[in-house]
């Protein structure tokens, strides 16, 4: 397998796309919002409750992994902290510069080379921002 091909589709991303840890609609939640990518029809719905985020996603591996890693990263965070992470995440996928504050989310840094796919990773974040009323 060529390295270029596995750079983006690395182990962590494939694992989370295949078996997400935070997928599924919770029985109770305080906020929710939906995001859709009009280019491909991919969809994500995020649910916020108890300082936890869960998601229901239908889409490509990048979208699925990004939604799941996001849910993990924001657990227990305040809305202000989430918004900071969101900004840092967008900058990281745009530039390819990893950021220690982003932890496992840095697995998506390779995306900057795939301009048309960046939206797949930022869609869950946009939905979360909307759910939080940002």
């Amino acid at each position, binding site marked *: 397998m060529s390295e*270029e091909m596995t750079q983006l*589709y690395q182990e962590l991303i494939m694992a989370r796309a295949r078996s997400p840890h935070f997928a599924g609609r919770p029985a109770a939640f305080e906020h929710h919002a939906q995001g859709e990518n009009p280019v*491909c*029809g*991919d969809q994500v719905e995020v649910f916020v409750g108890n300082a936890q985020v869960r998601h229901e996603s239908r*889409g*490509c591996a*990048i979208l699925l992994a990004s939604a799941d890693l996001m849910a993990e990263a924001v657990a227990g965070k305040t809305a202000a902290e989430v918004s900071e992470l969101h900004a840092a995440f967008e900058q990281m996928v745009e530039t390819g510069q990893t950021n220690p504050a982003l932890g496992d989310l840095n697995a998506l840094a390779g995306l900057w080379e795939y301009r048309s796919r960046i939206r797949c990773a930022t869609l869950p974040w946009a939905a979360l921002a909307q759910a939080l009323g940002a």
Partner: protein
Amino acid sequence: MSAALQAGAFDVERIRQDFPILTRTVHGKKLVFLDSAASAQKPRAVIDAMAHCMEAQYANVHRGLHFMSERTSEAYEAVRDKVAGLINAASRDEIVFTRNGTESINLVAHSFGRALLKAGDAVVVSEMEHHANLVPWQMLRDAHGVELRIVKITDSGEVDFASLEAQFADGKVKLLAITHMSNVLGSYTPAERLCAFAHARGAKILLDGAQAIVHRRVDVQVIGADFYVFSGHKLYGPTGIGVLYARREILEDMPPFLGGGDMINSVSYTHSSWARPPHRFEAGTPAIIETIGLGAAIDYVEAIGFDAIAAHERALTEHALNMLADVPGLSVLGRAQDRGGVISFVMQDIHAHDIATLLDRQGIAVRAGHHCAEPLMGRLGVSSTARASFGVYTTRAEIDALKSGLLRVQQVFR
């Protein structure tokens, strides 16, 4: 003179030499371009014709009384003859230049739709239309009160004639607007039969030839089309130039779509009278350079010959269907009897975008998404597909590369 034009028989390697872009590499790999259905690459002859126009023979058309304008007008109008020849229109005046196939359909929806259809009349489209042949009719429905009906396709991707009968049963249908070849499923529709069907029921027919025109000889008189539309850029020509063919009597009855220069007979402050077709429908300075490029593209495909093009693509499509059948977990959408070099597929547990990105890293360009046919995706029960499409320059080796590329994609997802 291009290599292909000198060659007697179809020789794909010589044809490839006519397309400068095919020597490019992508991500350090040889470019394997399998996205011609979205837009085709351009042969040297088209590039040169456009450059020549700008370097040696350029001015506005139909306006100047000077040498350059007259020569440019002649070159521009000569392309109308070439288009008429390409589709065997009865007259050059039946050829209207537009920006693309989408604009051609919008022109018909606005002009024919608003002036010659009445509230209560119905327009029928199929379940496998490109958005270009759906949205303009929805807009006409909302603005003008015509009814829009959808004829079903079968699971193999062919027009369902029982459904067509049902849609026409109440006699309200005045226009059937339907694709001549699906940009998703690759299926051809039986154009002659559809025209006869519509005419027997007092309706006109518009064929969306954006895909079909590229792969086969189209004869609008044999088919019996009232309207036929296509874009230059899929036919190895430039962007920015499209064609509307319409039978002369129909064009004569149609009011202008856009107003301005070139489309008038005379103008006063209070009133204007319209030029005759086709100029009535060509307001403003046209895409002169692009039209001349389209003329060169038509010369190019005519020199290769549609019989040779069709045979080449038939062989490639058959080869591709065989190769793809060997990829585990892959399903091809649509199994029409009569099909061309456009193949959509899905793979188990691998999203079309991931397929496209991972193929791209291997230098292989395919399209992924809903292909501007979102309702059809719903009908097929998928949200998106990957699509490989072929042109005159596509080789068997490229299809083999697609197959091995797909097997590598599967390894990443294993």
